[in-house]
């Protein structure tokens, strides 16, 4: 069997660089898998499909990190509507305004030299 051409991380990052939040779906388990991997943790199968999230989710847990230097910032766990959870942060509001249960929408954070990563912003009117 030839080696895999891409790692799960590379595929994930390639999607992010195109502005997409990608996750895997296990047809045999009938549920989402995240973080991306080479076999499904529910069935052990290597049949995993890549899907693109609609980018909507809900804050599951939240904290404010107070670094020794610099401003406090948010770290949150987000439950995406497709049924997977990821670590991220909610931007555009003060960290103390981030609430469990809050509806949030994905956007890509990019900065030169670093890999892109997903952040979230509050959904207006939610």
């Amino acid at each position, binding site marked *: 069997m030839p080696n895999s051409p891409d790692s799960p*991380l590379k595929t994930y*990052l390639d999607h992010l660089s195109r502005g997409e939040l990608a996750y895997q779906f296990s047809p045999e388990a009938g549920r989402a898998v995240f*973080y991306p991997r080479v076999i499904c943790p529910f069935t052990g199968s290597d049949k995993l499909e890549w899907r693109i999230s609609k980018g909507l989710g809900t804050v*599951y*847990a*939240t*904290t*404010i*990190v*107070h*670094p020794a230097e610099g401003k*406090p*910032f948010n*770290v*949150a*766990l987000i439950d995406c509507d497709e049924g997977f*959870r*990821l*670590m*991220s*942060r909610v931007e555009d509001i003060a960290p*103390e305004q981030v609430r*469990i*249960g809050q509806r949030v929408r994905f956007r890509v*954070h990019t900065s030169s030299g*670093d*890999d892109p*990563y997903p952040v979230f912003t509050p959904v207006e009117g939610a």
Partner: protein
Amino acid sequence: MDGLKRGSAAIVGVAESDLGQVADGMSVTDLMAQGTRRALDDCGLSLKDIDGLFCATAQSRLSVLGLAEYLGVDPKYIGSTIVGGSSFEFHVAHAMGAIALGLCNVALIAYGSTQRTIGRKQASVRETNPYETPFKPFLPSTAYALAASRHMHEFGTTREQLAAVAVAAREWALLNPKAWEKKPLSIADVLSSRMVSYPFTVRDCCLVTDGGGAIIVTSAERAKSLKKPPAYVLGCGHSVTHANITSMPDLTVTGALASGKAAYAMAGLGPADIDAVELYDAFTINTMLFLEDLGFCKKGEGGAFVSGGRIAPGGGLAVNTNGGGLSYCHPGMYGLLLLIEAVRQLRGECGARQVKNCEVAMAHGNGGVLSSQATVILGTSATL
């Protein structure tokens, strides 16, 4: 734990190494060896009796080799399972199994850390996780803070209730001459301390100290003829639910639920039978989560349970009687010190902090970010 026989092995020797801030240049193996010498003296065995060797430390990748070399032993059985602070509760079960199979007869379990002397950044390897590291979580505090946020949301737990855990630990520590912290602490002190990762201030977080020690486990048969009363291993259980906090299925329910269930089943005991409860309190939320998951109170009631001095000296339940990781000592992987305190409580060696008529004690270890849980239930000969 299935396959292990209740009471077939016992902890016969226990000792801390130097604690708090140790001498410059002291290595983790120096501390393990110091604990070993003292634990051997505690039980009357000698180095040549040791034929099983177990250890774990964050500061040495091949620590069991270093310890074997240092002690000049070529043990029949070795184990260096490393799953964070609960590693030593895992080692007790593994040693018990090895002894039962005749793979060894006298097992040494050792630990050392110089994280305070050399600095936390030097003491453990920084690991990168592409799905978490970009968000700069201050680990492990941030992971436990996320769990606390969820507990507060679901059950109405308050910062004051979390602080009550730290205050109780401090009151116990003031009764322990070896404790790092020497001054009283109030709920207001905890709340007004420097914020680390909301809702935790620095007083919701464990100490950063040096320290270590050793314990000696042998067969129940051999244990009878040694210096001090054996602490029999009545029950063990463990559970591994995740490695990273993002993958923890439910942040309000830990693997202590499963590890406790297995340990209780093996021991034939329940929470009401435990006289001294030693829980891994890396953060104030830990004590609440483990009290709930180990059945001392219902899920969600941990906050009310710890209030009003219930787990402080003189309260209804003796919890973390040495002062815990919050106020006694936390060298990074505190689980060995839980076992030492549980054994000493069973022997009646604890002076001002001694729990009356202590026949059954629990040491519950936690590792990673609520990731690995291991419960050990110990009892006196009266409980066999």
